[in-house]
C-alpha cells in the first residue's frame, strides 16, 4: 500500500477528502505540479520525460492494480 505523508495538514485533509486508492491520490496531487512545470519550463527533454513519466505512472498503476486483484 502506498502512503501519503500525512504529517502535513494540507496533505492530510486532501487524503481524507479522497478516501480512495492512495496511488491515484498521489497522481492527483502530482497532476498540477506536472502542468505548472510544463507551463513554466516549456517543452524540453526534462518536461517531456516528466509528463511521459506521469502518464506511464498512471497506466502502470492501473495495470498493477488489475494484476493484483
Amino acid at each position: 500500500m502506498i502512503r501519503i505523508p500525512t504529517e502535513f495538514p494540507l496533505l492530510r485533509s486532501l487524503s481524507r477528502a479522497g478516501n480512495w486508492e492512495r496511488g491515484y491520490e498521489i497522481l492527483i496531487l502530482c497532476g498540477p505540479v506536472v502542468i505548472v512545470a510544463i507551463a513554466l519550463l516549456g517543452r524540453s527533454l526534462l518536461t517531456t520525460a516528466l509528463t511521459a513519466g506521469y502518464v506511464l505512472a498512471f497506466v502502470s498503476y492501473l495495470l498493477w492494480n488489475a494484476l493484483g486483484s
Partner: protein
Amino acid sequence: MTARLRTLLSDLGRMLQALSGMMFLSVVVGLVWGEYYVVPGFLLSGGLALGIGWSFTRFGERAELGKLHGMMIAASGWLLVALFGSLPFLFVAWTVHLAPSWLAVPASVDTPTLAAFRGPINSVFESMSGFTGTGLTMTTHENELPHALQWWRSFTEWVGGVGVIVLTTAILSRPGSGSLTLYESEARSKKIHPSIVSTVRTIWWIFLLFTFVSISLLWLAGMPVWDAINHGMTGLSTGGFSITDDSIATYQSPLIEFALVPIMILGSIAFPVHYLMLQGDLHNIYRDLQTRWVFIYFSAGSVGLAALLQQYGTYDSLFQSVRFGLFQFVSAASCTGFQTAEIGETWPPLSQLTVAFGMFVGASAGSTVGGIKLIRLLTLGKGTAHRISEIFYPSSAIRRFEIDGRILSAVELAREFEEAAIITLLWLVLLAVGIVGLLLLIPPGFTLENVVFEVASAQGNVGLSTGITGPTMALPAKILLVFNMWVGRLEIIPVLVLLRAVLVRGDRP
C-alpha cells in the same frame, strides 16, 4: 410562499453560491494572463450570483425532497446556472466596449467575436452550451477571446460534464435529503458507494485524475500547454468547446486527433465502471454491457463512416478517410463535438446522417455524454425481440429477460421498456419540433440534412455544426436551440415536469 417553493429556493441558492465560487476562481486566470480588464466582470458576476444565492437560501428552507422536487430542482437549477453563467461573457464584453480608462483595455481585444456577447441571448446561448456540455458556439474566432473567457467556456463544460447537479448534491446533501433523487434525475443511477455524497466525491476525484492525464497526453502529442489544458477539460467532459478558430482542425495533426480519441472515449464510459476498472477490475471493458457496446458501436460507426468517405471519394487516401471517419464518429457518438472536417460543406449527405445517428444515440448512461444512451437502445431492441418471440411460446411458458447482468421480472421489464420507449419517443418528437422550427427560422441555402444535423447536435449535447449556428442567427432560432440543449441534457422529463408544475400551479397531481 409554499413550503415546497422554499425548499426549491434553498437548493437553488446553494447552486448559485457554488457558481459564484467558480467565477471568483476564474479571476485568477485573468490575473495570470495580465488581463486585468476582465476582473471587474468576473467579480461582479460572482457577487451577483453570491448575493442572489444567499437571499434564496435566506428565504428558503431545507427539507426532505420528493421525486417531483428533485426533478424540478434539476431542471430549474440547470436553467438558472446557465443564465447566471452568462454574466461573465456579458460583463466582459461590455467592459471592453466601454473601455474605462482606469482599466487600460487594449484596443486589440475589442473584436467582433467578443462584441457578439454584448447581446444577452448570445451570452446565454454560450453559457447553456457550456453547462450542458454541448459545444455549439456564438463565437466566430475563439482565438480572439480573452484567455479568461476561453477558460470560462472550458470550465463551464468541465463542471457541466459531471453535472452541476451532481456537484451540488455534495454541497446540498444532508441526511434523507433526497439527494439520490437529484442524482437519478440527472440520469446517473448506478452507485459507486451507498452514500451519495461519497459517490459524488469519488466521481470528482476520478474526473480530476483523468483531466490531468488528458492534459498531459495532449501536450505530449504536440499541443501547446494552454490549448492542452482547455481541450483536455472539454474533451474529457465531452463538451467540445475549443479555443482555436477551427476546433481541432487547426492543428492539422493526426497525432493530436488520435490522442483525443481515447480521451473522448473515457468521457463516454459510465463513471461507476471507471471506478471498478481503476480498482483493478479491467474485465468490465467487456463484461459491462454498456462499455462493451461503446467499443462495438464506436468501432462499427467509425468503420462505416470511413467506408462511406472512401466510397464517395471525399478524401485522397484511405488513411485520410479512416483518420477523419474515426475522429468524427467518436466525436459525434461521444457527444463531444470536436471538429476536424468541414462536414456541412464537403461531406456527402449519407455521411452527415451517419454522424447525426451517432449524435442521436450517444454512449453510456452514467457518463458525460448526451443522446438517448446505448442502454435505452439496447433495452428497446432486446425488449422488442422478447415481445415478438413471446408469440411463439405457449402461454404457460416462464421466460427470463436478462439485460446488463440483471434478470428482470415481467413487471420490471415492462417498466424499463416503457421508460426507454417514452424517452425515445419524446426525444424524437422534440427533435421533429426543433427541425420544423429551425427550417422556418433559418435563411435559405441550408439543406434539410443540415437542419436535422444541427438540431440533433443541440439536443444530443454534441456541438458539431453545419454552419447554421452563429451570432447572426435569428433570435427565435437561438432560443429554440437553447431549449433543445436544456431538454437534451436533462433527458426531457425533468423539464416537462418543471413546465407542468409552473403552468399547472406546481403541486397539484
